[in-house]
């Protein structure tokens, strides 16, 4: 392995006006029908005081090699959404397949989620799981998280292919975020 020669550029906040430059991607990504291959995630982003965050952007990444060939101009597995004035978001994400952990054991299906907002000097990364998956009980990443915080990563079923997942940026019920 080569030694790193360059230091990654510093992150800066996305600020409050990112929609100017980033919402086009939502428009150009086309409409994805809510069928067996997609899952609808609805939720709300809240700050320390329980105040909805009206200027956040979320990006969902479903790594699913089986379907990588389906990429055209817009990559399969990626989805960007902006919250509305009340901090609510709705994202149709591609259904994840089980993927192995570094030790070869299988992980429970999950989606990686990136958060950007005014106030976040660097984006946050979390993982989203689904409450109808028994494999959550043996998922090596979930098991590495303090038991009382695991539920913050598990979206709750609200009907066929529809889940709810609220994100709390700070406080006693803070969503689990990862260091990267």
């Amino acid at each position, binding site marked *: 392995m080569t030694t790193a020669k360059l*230091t990654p550029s*510093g992150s800066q906040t996305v600020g409050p006006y990112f929609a100017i430059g980033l919402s086009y991607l939502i428009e150009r990504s086309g409409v994805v029908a809510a069928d067996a291959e997609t899952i609808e995630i609805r939720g709300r982003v809240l700050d320390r005081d329980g105040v909805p965050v009206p200027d956040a952007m979320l990006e969902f990444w479903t790594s699913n*090699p089986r379907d990588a060939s389906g990429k055209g101009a817009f990559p399969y597995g990626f989805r960007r959404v902006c919250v509305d004035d009340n901090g609510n978001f709705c994202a149709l994400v591609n259904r994840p397949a089980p993927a192995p*952990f570094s030790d070869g054991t299988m992980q429970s299906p999950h989606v990686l989620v990136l958060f950007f907002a005014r*106030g976040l000097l660097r984006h*946050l*990364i979390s993982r989203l799981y689904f409450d109808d998956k028994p494999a959550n009980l043996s998922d090596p990443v979930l098991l*590495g998280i303090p038991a009382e915080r695991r539920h913050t990563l598990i979206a709750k079923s609200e009907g066929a292919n529809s889940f709810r997942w609220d994100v709390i940026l700070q406080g006693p019920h803070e969503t689990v975020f990862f260091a990267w």
Partner: protein
Amino acid sequence: MIESSAIQSGAPGTQPAYHYPPYVSSIARSPRMPLIVLPDTVTERTGPVFGHGLIREGDNDLTAQHSGEPVGERIFVHGRVLDEDGRPLRGTLVEIWQANAAGRYRHKVDMHDAPLDPNFSGAGRMLTDDEGRYWFKTIKPGPYPWGNHYNAWRPAHIHFSLFGAGILSRLVTQMYFPGDPLQPLDPIFNSIPDGAARRRLVSRLDMNRAEPNYALAYEWDIVLRGRADTPFEEPHR
């Protein structure tokens, strides 16, 4: 998909902390519980690859998106997107947005009492070429006041959003201009503790790329986390 080796963040002090009280908006929005070490699995080592069909002709010329020319100082902004080994990242999506020459964003929540420019939207994007190069033609953005503290002004900047090889290479940052006296006063700029890392967010006047009697040029290279050019093998089924 492209696989990038998941590695730890760069040298200490080269990235901002989440909680940075001089930037007041960070106080109620930054996590305070311990962060969990990110796993290293296919989820983290892959990322989206954008096709050329996403980009439209003229998306990287912010001065030609309306019927007339925008007001302000016309500039070129160009540079390279590199991985940590200094290798060019080709086909990388670079998205930018910015205020107009008067320091006003075309956005519903920007209340700054400065004129909007009917000939300037302030957004551009392109995919880097085979040498990892990007280039934009735009208007030099003006500084503008904001509510962080009394008489707070943001130094002139252009917002950048980038995708590299793998989702962990994702970067959103801001490019600044050389010699801007507002930089030392700006809590967002100063949120990066390391002085050299801060200075790397400042572009360089590039007279080689300036066009006589037309426009000055600024050069700014961006380094994304990770290492590229390792093709991800599709599993056989």
